[in-house]
Structure formats: structure tokens, C-alpha cells
């Protein structure tokens, strides 16, 4: 770590890598998922859109869309924490193949827990990595809308980690 590194260089590197990962996943674009970063901590945003509705009567968000949002939160968070050291060493943005040479974790299983209906407004999510081993990872995701302490959904998933996150790094 270089304590004298200019702030704008640090932000450019970290935000650049993060945005590259999100932009590389078409399904994240389909749901229009956004990410905000404070240091290494990520918060995900699912902006409300009419197409996310599953119950037009209430109206309420479709559970499957919320599931996709939480799964993306888990996968991107897992990737982010795993490549942190390489990113800080400046290996990623100097790599012209990044992010196309990025290997993502693969979902083994995911269990969704729907606590209350998702309302027709923005949703937020944050992931906690409970275990991240060489092969397997276990991740918990919380999703909320107005109040963080009133979760509307949560999930736990298991993921198969890639042998290498960055392909070109042989």
C-alpha cells in the first residue's frame, strides 16, 4: 500500500474495476443494477422499473427478479473481494483483456427467503461472505427498501469458486 498515492488514482482504479465487472454482466444491465462503494464495502441498488412487477394488483416486485438481484449481489461481491489484492497491485486496469478474462463464481444453490412483499420502489442489497475457501464460498445477502432493519428478502447461496479469477494470470 502506498500511503502517498493520490486519492483520485485510488478512486479511479477501484471504481473503474467495479464498474467493469458490473458492465460485463448483461443480466445486471437487464435489471439495471447499480453499485455504490465505500472503501471495499459494496451496496447494490435495484432501481424500480415497471418491468420488475410480478403482482400488478398490490403492486409487488416479482420474487424471481429479486432473486436475480440478490444472486448478482452475491456473485459481484465475491468477485470483488477475491480480486481486491490484484486490483490494488494495479494488475487489472493495466490488463487490456480485463474484464473479458474474468472468471466468475458459479452458483451451486441459493435459498431465497421472502419476508414481505417488495414494493414498487428501489431496493437495496448487501452481501456478507460467511466463508470463502479455495473451492467453495457461502454468502448471505440482505435486501431492503425503506428501512435496513426491515428486510423484505434475504438469501444464502453456495458458490463454486473459479480456479483463477483472472484467466491471463497463469
Amino acid at each position, binding site marked *: 500500500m502506498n500511503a502517498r498515492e493520490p486519492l483520485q488514482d485510488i478512486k479511479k482504479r477501484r471504481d473503474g474495476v467495479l464498474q467493469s465487472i458490473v458492465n*460485463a*454482466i*448483461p*443480466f445486471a*444491465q*437487464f*435489471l439495471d443494477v447499480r453499485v455504490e462503494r465505500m472503501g471495499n464495502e459494496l451496496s447494490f441498488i435495484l432501481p424500480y422499473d*415497471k*418491468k*420488475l*412487477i*410480478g*403482482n*400488478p*394488483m398490490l403492486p*409487488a416486485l*416479482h*420474487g*424471481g*427478479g429479486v*432473486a*436475480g*438481484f440478490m*444472486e*448478482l449481489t452475491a*456473485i459481484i461481491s465475491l468477485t470483488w473481494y477475491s480480486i481486491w489484492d490484484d486490483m490494488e497491485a494495479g494488475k487489472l486496469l493495466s490488463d487490456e483483456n480485463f*474484464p*473479458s*478474462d*474474468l*472468471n*466468475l463464481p*458459479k*452458483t*451451486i*444453490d*441459493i*435459498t*431465497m*427467503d*421472502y419476508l414481505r*412483499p417488495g414494493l414498487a420502489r428501489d431496493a437495496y442489497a448487501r452481501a456478507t461472505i460467511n466463508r470463502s475457501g479455495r473451492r467453495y464460498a457461502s454468502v448471505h445477502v440482505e435486501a431492503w427498501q425503506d428501512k435496513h432493519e426491515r428486510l423484505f428478502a434475504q438469501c444464502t447461496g453456495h458458490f463454486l469458486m473459479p480456479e483463477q479469477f483472472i*484467466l491471463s494470470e497463469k
Partner: protein
Amino acid sequence: MSVLVHKIAAQFVASLPLCSAMGLHIGDAQDGAPAIILPYSKSLIGDPQTGVIHGGAVSVLLDTVCGAEVFGHPENTVPTATIDLRIDYMRPAKIGEPIYARAIVYQTTRNVAFVRGTAWDTDIDNPVAMAAGAFTFAKKAAKS
């Protein structure tokens, strides 16, 4: 193992905004019986390296087909909502192929319906993913 019994309910559910945005529709699977179908689309890719559809899109499909079977269940009286849904991803879906899904409501109580769902692409016996879930349910009162 699973069936798509309630075709009208499935048609209704597949027409919901998220489902129609993803192109979900009812059609016949390889065995000639109906299933809910998720067409392959580049916008749903989850792994840009391989072009495989994101697990979240398969979640939408399985949640939809499970919900449709509960919604259309002859003993149900109200719209349904997912309480919990577990999805196992057995293998990546084949690139360019539609994904089919069916579900079966295998048990109901007064307030809960228990459902299993399967999703596959080219081979009905080699599933891409399977789901097990619990849905809200309101059983019709028994006539005395």
C-alpha cells in the same frame, strides 16, 4: 416428475411484466406436453466468458412456474406469494437453447403449498436446475 396442469394460470402468470420482459411463454416441451419456456437471450447472460444465462433468470422462470401451479391449484382461493424457494443449479444451461420448466404442487395445508420445480434445456431427464419452495395458500373451506 413435474407437470404443467394449470395452463390458463400459467398463461396469466407468464404475462406479468417481468415475465413478458424476459419473453416467458407457454409452449410444448420435447414430450409434447406444455411447459413455461424462457427463450435464450443475450441480455440475460450471466457469465460473459461463456454466454451462459444468469442463474437469476432461471430463478425467475422457476419462481414463475411454481407460483403458477399454486395460483391455479383448484383448492386455492387467493393470489399466492413465495415464502421461500431453494434452487439447485446442476449444470450451466446450453448456449442458444430455450429453457423449459414445470412444477408440481405435492402438498398443501390450510395456509401453505409445497412445490417442486424442474428446469431443463435439450434433455428433459438432465435438468439445468431444480427448485423446492413454499408458497402462501388459502385452502377452500370444506363443504359440510
